[in-house]
């Protein structure tokens, strides 16, 4: 990994008196896939909109490809590609015209435009649809076309705002393949998502954002490792006593009581530690109702840092945020 291609320092953004982004700082290295993970309304889109100059930078410093978004907006626009969250296509233009239009408004010379169109149409496998109007494309094809369009000008960074929202699982896998392929060719990818699996599969590094603040950062593995080797979810007849026992054991680095029982974080292989835990609880004649062990996932990381589950909460969360407006 080379130098930082995006540098954000203390970015703040408010809509009225609602602070959507609150003192966010991070850097993205050239060549990596960087994910912004968080529930709906966490501030992801606001951040990406400031980074791509669609919203003004109210407070803080944002540099993209070495240019300040405040003082050098044009240069930023020229060096990035953007795939918007919602569909941004002219339904009555053909696939070829869509790319041609984009190349032209970015002032690409004709020969370069044509070469790039051919190349990208092949990349996203839309050769058969070249002269089809975009309204006749499937959701996945539209997404692929939008990604191709974002790449027309060979941007150094491609911004993808929720790239697979509303797509079926098979199509998502395909889009992921394209994104990985594009990254391997050398384009830095900045993506926002509220899908754990998406962030997990694609990213070199992840920032978890909630209520406008970054709450955790790292690689997928390092984030999970903060939760130890394994996690055990335990339900007993007497959670309070069991909690006390578990806390005193070596290899257990964290114990938390939740509404569903106990959550144990282990610093060693769970297969080896679990029998010990169970037998010591059993010795105290505490009834064990259920046991479940798993490798920590990004879901667990999110729950750990926010105390909420991402997916279950996100809809309700969005609702509350809307009401606050």
């Amino acid at each position, binding site marked *: 990994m080379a130098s930082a291609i995006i540098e954000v320092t203390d970015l703040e953004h408010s809509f009225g008196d609602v602070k959507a982004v609150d003192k966010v700082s991070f850097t993205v290295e050239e060549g990596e896939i960087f994910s912004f993970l968080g529930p709906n309304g966490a501030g992801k889109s606001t951040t990406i*909109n400031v980074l791509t100059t669609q919203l003004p930078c109210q407070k803080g410093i944002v540099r993209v490809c070495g240019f300040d978004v405040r003082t050098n907006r*044009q240069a930023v*626009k020229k060096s990035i590609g953007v795939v*918007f969250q919602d569909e941004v296509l*002219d*339904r009555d233009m053909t696939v070829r015209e869509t790319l041609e239009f984009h190349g*032209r*408004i970015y002032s690409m010379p004709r020969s370069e435009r044509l070469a790039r169109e051919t190349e990208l149409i092949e990349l996203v496998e839309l050769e058969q649809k070249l002269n089809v109007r975009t309204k006749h494309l499937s959701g996945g094809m539209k997404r692929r076309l939008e990604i191709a369009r974002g790449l027309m000008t060979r941007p150094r960074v491609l911004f993808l705002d929720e790239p697979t929202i509303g797509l079926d699982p098979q199509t998502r896998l395909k889009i992921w393949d394209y994104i990985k392929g594009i990254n391997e060719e050398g384009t830095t990818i900045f993506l926002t998502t509220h899908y754990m699996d998406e962030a997990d599969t694609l990213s070199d590094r992840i920032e978890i954002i909630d209520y406008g603040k970054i709450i955790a950062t790292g690689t997928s593995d390092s984030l999970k490792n903060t939760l130890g080797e394994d996690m055990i979810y335990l339900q007993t007849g007497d959670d309070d006593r069991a909690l006390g026992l578990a806390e005193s054991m070596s290899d257990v680095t964290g114990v938390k009581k939740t509404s569903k029982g106990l959550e144990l974080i282990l610093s060693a292989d769970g297969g080896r530690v679990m029998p010990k835990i169970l037998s010591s609880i059993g010795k105290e004649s505490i009834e064990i109702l259920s046991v479940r062990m798993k490798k920590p996932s990004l879901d667990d990381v999110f729950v750990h840092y926010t105390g909420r589950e991402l997916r279950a909460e996100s809809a309700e969360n969005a609702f509350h945020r809307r009401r606050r407006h």
Partner: protein
Amino acid sequence: MGREFLTVYWREMIRFVRFKGQLFAALVQPALWLLLFGIAMTSNFDSNPFAMPTIPGVVSVDYLTFMAAGVMAMTALFTCLFGGMGLLFDKNWGIMKEMLASPMPSYHIQIGVGLGGVTKSFIQVGLIMVFGLVLGVKFFLGFSALETVFAVLGIFAFIMIFSAGFIFLSAGLAMRVESMESVQAMMTLLTLPLMFSSNALYSTSSFPVWLQTISSVNPLTYLVNGIRYFALGNDFTAMGTHYEYTGGEIALSFAVLLVFAGLTFVFAWRAFRTAKVT
């Protein structure tokens, strides 16, 4: 200045020819005006010689010829007044975001859409003029070939400035307003008074003063003056009114349209400069 506005223009024209139904309606509607309203009214007026006194030695123009100029002007008005609507679609369901995220300065959108509106006006007005001539409209009577060419150029110069004015107005509104319905309502509200307070279909000389005042700030009136001057000459009677245009009056009409276009240009310019779609 870059040439990216030509790309916006290119797209406008793609859309113009692609929506066959809309294209058909846009061309047929004014033709119907001429054919039905024109011929119906003509047969009424011209069969009653007492109502329409003529002046000896002055060309008397039949109603169809008189109103053909008005229909040409109205065609340009409708085309451009609704010409900015596409931007509202682009904002809500289309590629406005893409355009605003690109390094292309946003006034290029305005210029591209403006050129599109003017071109559409030219095509429609040109077709209506030809259709009118076929129906028996007596334009360019007694003009030499060179004079005819000059007259057509004059008409199109007027159409160009007028169309630019209204396309900018409509584009500016579309960029400022959120919902389709409100713009539609606004346009419909504008069309009727613009049409009926102008001299497109009848003379304004016997209007009450307040209506004459409205007519005198109505750009459509000035466009119709220009078209009649170039198509019918500077001295004729129609529907009992004697029309005499001086070169100065026509220059003034053109200047009024220029001012109007200038104002709406600034109105749209501001709307585009602050446009944000997120």
